[in-house]
């Protein structure tokens, strides 16, 4: 049995999902053309049922690629739990009307039920049930209220097979139902309502946005740095490294296997950043240097998402994003890109036109450093002084703006306008927040760990075979001539195709000047997407789009790297 959770965006579907499925959740692998969805299981009596969290949609006549997925998934379900925002009954019932015209049995959850009381909304659920012909259960997903009752009533789910109607007829039906079941009394503005208004009006909203972004940055930095400084580094230095030193002695401090597993020794010691052994740097980069930042970043991003702040940012930045050929909503994939390019490029599907998706995906893969790369930039460049970190970020930001301007002028097609619902601020469900955080962190470990180890393995093999020397000599004119980096830096550039974090780590042993390090980090970020991002980029943009993106990438990297070399 397969149960679909369907409803408008921002009705608390994810919180509902994590309530009903418990913690055993798997993130699906974005198969084919679907936008990511989550799958879990629940017990129905003795039977185990599969539960799918379908992307939010307002209607079954899809108006965007993400909505298309929702209507395509419909025939695969045996039962639909239609989740409604009880404080917005009228609009939410439109989708319900469409669902009731189909053959799949439906049960309705009136979510956010607790909000209706202080908003002065009174809904007669018994009467609503009568009108719809399917069970209606009030729920509060954040606290879990009503979830059990809903699960108990799942067997009553029905399909009234209403006759197919036109849009106006559906609204008319919705209107007459609303008149009978809902009474509204006046309610006063709460402080949350006021905060909502102040954060969307530009005069107050823009300073608030600057504050929120700055605060996010510092909190992420604070959590990441302290986790590394007080937990991960001591763990590696005190426990793991001594163990590895003994293994190093056992292997005779040299030889092929020593180089692969332990890597190079510096003054007879292992250097977690520079040794480049599978068991030393190969574990330290993902777990010691990057994981703390991944955790911190996704915690803050999840909070901003679940509180409902991101759509406000989209409205405030809409102006700016239009200059880049995008609209405000594109800020959401862009923010995701600060975590990882893969979900970010996939999230460009929320944009309607091909042109927008091409521009957004290209900008993300060139100018937005992922969390793994950023963690390494903080680690390596931060050592030399904060001003150099600012230089890396400043350069990338200017590149993002300039490239956007240029792409906006040159890429053909049209960019539609912003049209989004701005959800009210809500206290997030910690359960849903932690589930999401866990899925994202687990995703990083699952996807990145093997590739990082593979990358480190490849580096030691290729070093041993002397392949890098040949490449280094061949590419010296560009690497040294244009970027002003030692020719050995080409190793990092090549490895950048596998993993950006490992690549930036490879700059560590080259004894670069601070300026060269800045150039190195910028070039590595821009030059080529890592293999995971490359695959999604190819799938999302098609062959021609991919070629365009790569062409832009190469030209931009050469120009920016060369310019930086002249300036620094």
């Amino acid at each position, binding site marked *: 049995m397969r149960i679909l959770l369907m409803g408008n965006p921002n009705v608390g579907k994810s919180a509902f999902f994590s309530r009903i499925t418990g913690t055993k959740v798997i993130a699906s692998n974005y198969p084919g053309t679907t936008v990511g969805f989550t799958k879990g299981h629940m017990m129905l009596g003795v039977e185990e049922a599969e539960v799918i969290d379908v992307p939010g949609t307002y209607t079954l006549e899809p108006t965007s690629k993400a909505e298309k997925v929702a209507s395509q998934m419909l025939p695969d379900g045996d039962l639909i739990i239609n989740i409604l925002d009880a404080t917005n009954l009228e*609009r939410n019932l439109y989708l319900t009307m469409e669902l009731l015209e189909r053959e799949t049995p439906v049960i309705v959850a009136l979510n956010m039920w607790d909000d209706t009381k202080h908003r002065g909304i009174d809904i007669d659920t018994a009467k609503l049930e009568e009108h719809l012909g399917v069970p209606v259960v009030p729920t509060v997903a954040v606290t879990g209220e009503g979830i059990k009752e809903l699960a108990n009533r799942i067997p009553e789910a029905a399909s009234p097979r209403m006759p197919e109607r036109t849009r106006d007829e559906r609204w008319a039906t919705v209107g007459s139902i609303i008149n009978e079941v809902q009474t509204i009394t006046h309610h006063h503005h709460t402080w949350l309502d006021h905060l909502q208004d102040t954060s*969307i009006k530009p005069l107050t909203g823009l300073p608030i946005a600057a504050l929120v972004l700055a605060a996010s940055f510092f909190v992420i930095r604070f959590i990441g740095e302290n986790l590394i400084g007080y937990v991960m580094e001591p763990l590696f230095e005190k426990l793991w490294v001594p163990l590895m030193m003994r293994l190093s002695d056992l292997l005779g401090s040299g030889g092929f296997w020593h180089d692969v597993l332990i890597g190079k020794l510096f003054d007879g010691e292992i250097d977690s950043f520079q040794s480049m052994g599978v068991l030393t740097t190969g574990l330290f980069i993902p777990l010691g240097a990057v994981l703390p930042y991944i955790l911190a970043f996704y915690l803050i991003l999840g909070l901003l998402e679940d509180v409902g702040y991101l759509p406000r940012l989209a409205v405030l930045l809409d*102006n700016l994003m239009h200059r880049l050929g995008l609209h405000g909503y594109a800020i959401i994939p862009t923010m995701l890109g600060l975590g990882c390019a893969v979900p970010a490029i996939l999230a460009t599907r929320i944009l309607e036109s091909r042109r927008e998706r091409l521009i957004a995906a290209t900008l993300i893969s060139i100018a937005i450093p992922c969390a793994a790369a950023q963690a390494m930039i903080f680690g390596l460049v931060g050592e030399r002084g904060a001003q150099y970190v600012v230089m890396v970020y400043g350069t990338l930001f200017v590149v993002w703006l300039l490239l956007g301007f240029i792409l906006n002028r040159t890429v053909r097609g049209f960019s539609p306008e912003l049209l989004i619902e*701005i959800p009210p601020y809500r206290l997030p469900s910690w359960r849903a927040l932690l589930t999401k955080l866990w899925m994202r962190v687990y995703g990083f470990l699952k996807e990145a760990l093997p590739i990082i180890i593979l990358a480190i393995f490849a580096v030691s093999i290729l070093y041993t075979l002397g392949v890098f020397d040949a490449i280094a000599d061949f590419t010296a004119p560009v690497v040294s001539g244009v970027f002003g980096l030692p020719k050995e830096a080409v190793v990092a550039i090549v490895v950048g195709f596998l993993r950006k974090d490992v690549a930036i780590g490879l700059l560590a042993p080259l004894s670069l000047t601070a300026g060269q390090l800045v150039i190195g980090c910028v070039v590595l970020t821009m030059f080529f997407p890592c293999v995971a991002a490359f695959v999604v980029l190819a799938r999302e943009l098609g062959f021609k789009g991919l070629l365009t993106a790569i062409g832009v990438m190469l030209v931009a990297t050469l120009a920016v790297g060369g310019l930086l070399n002249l300036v620094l």
Partner: protein
Amino acid sequence: MDEPKRITVRQMRAGQSGEVVQVLGGPGLVNRLNSLGIRPGKRITKVSSVFMRGPVTIQIDRAHVAIGYGMSNRILVEVT
């Protein structure tokens, strides 16, 4: 009481309410606005707008919706 007059959402003042009378646009635009509940006969209130051709935020029932500048010029409302 003032005579009802027809203006676009863009022309409304912040805090002003009106009834949607028409969406000037193709079926695509009409469909997208419709799915968000913005359709003739519906009462909306303008919340704010961003300067320099920025989007307009309106309230419809208890939902806030942000509408791009161009679109906001194509939604006609009747205000009194």
